[in-house]
């Protein structure tokens, strides 16, 4: 069933702050096998001009995708998450995510399209720090595949 177009432009309330921990960054960097010292060594990060260790570029997805849950699980929208695949992902950064950041995400439904029975949902997540400064915007395209035989 096609999703309701009237949800386009709907913005969900900002999430409670997520505090970025240095050990969480280390865990993530190790999980992707990335030994860049900017992720784990404060002195190396400072030598690059950062105030503390920074997170790999895609680290923030865990935070924005959790925030997108407000959209995905919105009973009024009625998305069938069991049929959803991740289509596209994009980030634009004002600055890197750093240890100690307290990040809040505001999710907006940017577009809803129907293509060959598939529902395509574009969600934008604006990430701000505790001072209200923009850190990164994440765009996530989800595709809900048409049920077989539909």
């Amino acid at each position, binding site marked *: 069933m096609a999703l309701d177009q009237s949800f386009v432009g709907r913005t969900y309330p900002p999430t409670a702050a997520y505090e970025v921990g240095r050990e969480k960054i280390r865990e993530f960097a190790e*999980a992707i*096998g*990335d030994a860049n010292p900017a992720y784990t060594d404060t002195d190396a990060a400072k030598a*690059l001009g950062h105030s503390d260790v*920074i997170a790999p570029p895609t680290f923030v997805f865990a935070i924005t995708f959790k925030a997108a849950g407000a959209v995905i699980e919105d009973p009024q929208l009625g998305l069938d998450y069991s049929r959803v695949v991740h289509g596209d*992902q994009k980030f634009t950064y004002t600055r890197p995510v750093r240890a100690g950041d307290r990040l809040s995400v505001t999710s907006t439904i940017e577009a809803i399209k129907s293509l060959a029975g598939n529902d395509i949902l574009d969600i934008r997540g604006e990430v701000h720090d505790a001072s209200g400064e923009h850190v990164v915007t994440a765009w996530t395209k989800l595709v809900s595949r048409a049920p077989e035989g539909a």
Partner: protein
Amino acid sequence: MTAKIAYDEVEVGTELPAQSFPVTRATLVRYAGASGDFNPIHWNEKFAVEVGLPDVIAHGMFTMAEAIRVVTDWAGDPAAVVEYGVRFTKPVVVPNDDQGALIEVSAKVAAKLDDRRVRVDITAMSAGQKVLGMSRAVVELA
């Protein structure tokens, strides 16, 4: 932000050092824990097959994380990446053996932009197939 590559030293067509990233089931379990993405298609073969996949597949976001390493290693400072986007075109299938899968990543400078920025186009392959499409980063150089 302190990129170690100078804008004036790169041309359209400049190739970044290519890299290959191995992925095993253990890699995926570790990534699931670190990222919080516990979708069983990334670790449970029975479940993956039931939903029509050939086998367990890697998290798309894992592949995205590996692909940008070619750019962050080149630039030196990961914060030089000011924009990064991909399309997930094919899954990286990860068999339950000692080999797992290999993600092969190459990249080249596709355009020189204003403000000492360049657009880098990234190619990520696994088992002879392109696993990312429209994979592009904008990088601010020195």
